[in-house]
């Protein structure tokens, strides 16, 4: 069963004042905004990698409120970072196994590799992968742990137009089969409209539009 993510966070992150209150229901929610608007900071705060004031709940579970702060490793979030994502000293298979060993009920490595189209990459080292392949592996690894929430921080950055279009379509099709809340950061409005059920807009640290 999937739960809705409820976020109410505020505070300063460097020079930026964050003020955000929104929900992410199961399905794909796109978070758009210009560079420096606070998209990545917000994602990191939801994951517990940065500390802002407020609350983060998913279903009946408290990740953060005035009394509690669950550390990132206990939140069971699939997080695909922008850029380098893979553990560089481990092969693709070992990257997946690293996640599987620490998950309560992981999917099988072969199954997720097949579904994300990375089965032929399992024995490669991260340094030998293209940008698109590495992002695909990172996504597979995030899905493997059966996350309660999937956070994707500009997962298509650095890919060429062809690779980007192919990956977006594949990813969107795959994510639609999940009943998990997905929050995907993008600065491309067309991309957001194409894949998302819900769109959020953030500007200068504040969520301004929900559609």
């Amino acid at each position, binding site marked *: 069963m999937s739960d809705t993510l409820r976020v109410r966070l505020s505070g300063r992150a460097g020079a930026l004042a964050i003020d955000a209150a929104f929900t992410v229901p199961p399905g794909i929610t796109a978070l758009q905004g210009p560079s420096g608007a606070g998209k990545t900071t917000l994602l990191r705060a939801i994951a517990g*990698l940065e500390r802002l004031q407020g609350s983060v709940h998913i279903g009946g579970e408290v990740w953060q409120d005035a009394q509690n702060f669950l550390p*990132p*490793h*206990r939140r069971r979030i699939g*997080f695909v970072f922008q850029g380098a994502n893979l553990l*560089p*000293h481990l092969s693709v298979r070992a990257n997946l196994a*690293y996640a599987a060993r620490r998950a309560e009920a992981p999917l099988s490595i072969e199954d997720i590799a097949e579904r994300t189209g990375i089965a032929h990459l399992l024995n490669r080292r*991260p340094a030998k992968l293209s940008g698109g392949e590495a992002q695909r592996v990172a996504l597979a690894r995030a899905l493997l742990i059966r996350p309660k929430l999937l956070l994707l921080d500009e997962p298509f950055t650095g890919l060429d137009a062809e690779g980007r279009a192919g990956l977006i379509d594949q990813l969107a099709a795959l994510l639609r089969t999940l009943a998990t809340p997905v929050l995907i950061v993008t600065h491309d409005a067309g991309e957001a409209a194409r894949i998302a059920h819900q769109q959020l807009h953030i500007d200068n640290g504040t969520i301004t539009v929900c559609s």
Partner: protein
Amino acid sequence: MDPTPLALVIATTLELALITTILLLAIATPLAWWLARSRRWWKEVIGAVTALPLVLPPTVIGFYVLIALGPQSPLMAPLHAFGIRTLAFTFTGLVIGSLFYSLPFAVQPLRTAFESVGTRPLEVAAMLGAGPFDRFATIALPLSRCGFVSAAILVFAHTVGEFGVVLMIGGAIPGRTEVLSTRIFQLVENLQYGEAHRIAAGLVAFAFLALLGLLLAERRIGSVAP
């Protein structure tokens, strides 16, 4: 009095270097990790203290460690109950002095290696369910192995070559605290240049091989690393 057999002096030197290397890696690892990860400004005060032996004369370190390990030292008071009044001029004292003297040779390469890991792999591991110690053991340590190899080789070689500190604390007592560097000093004092030359040339060859091994190990680890 007959001098201690050279083999025993070599054994004492290697034993000292080996024990110092093992203990120092154990002590320097958490210290270097904290120095690499902490955001507190005053960590550099601790960083500067650990680097002091790089610039201090060995006799200064030896002098203060000698005082600290002497019978009048308050640091020795807890050991009086066990019948130990001083650690000066003992092998244990020599090890303690070597730990101080070689500390930066372990901390600096480890700190640099930990800093070069960066935060991203650790954050990735956290999001995959790895707790703090798990992240240290499975991410930071393997990605810093080059730093561990450098630290181990540098500490071992540096301890084999130290003179001032071991002479001050150990006193070059035959069979107990006499090491190769102090043996050379004694031989030169006795004008036995031939024997001194043999040992000195051996130490030059050892130092060269240690540094060559260090460079080759770094090259090899660098080529198989990501």
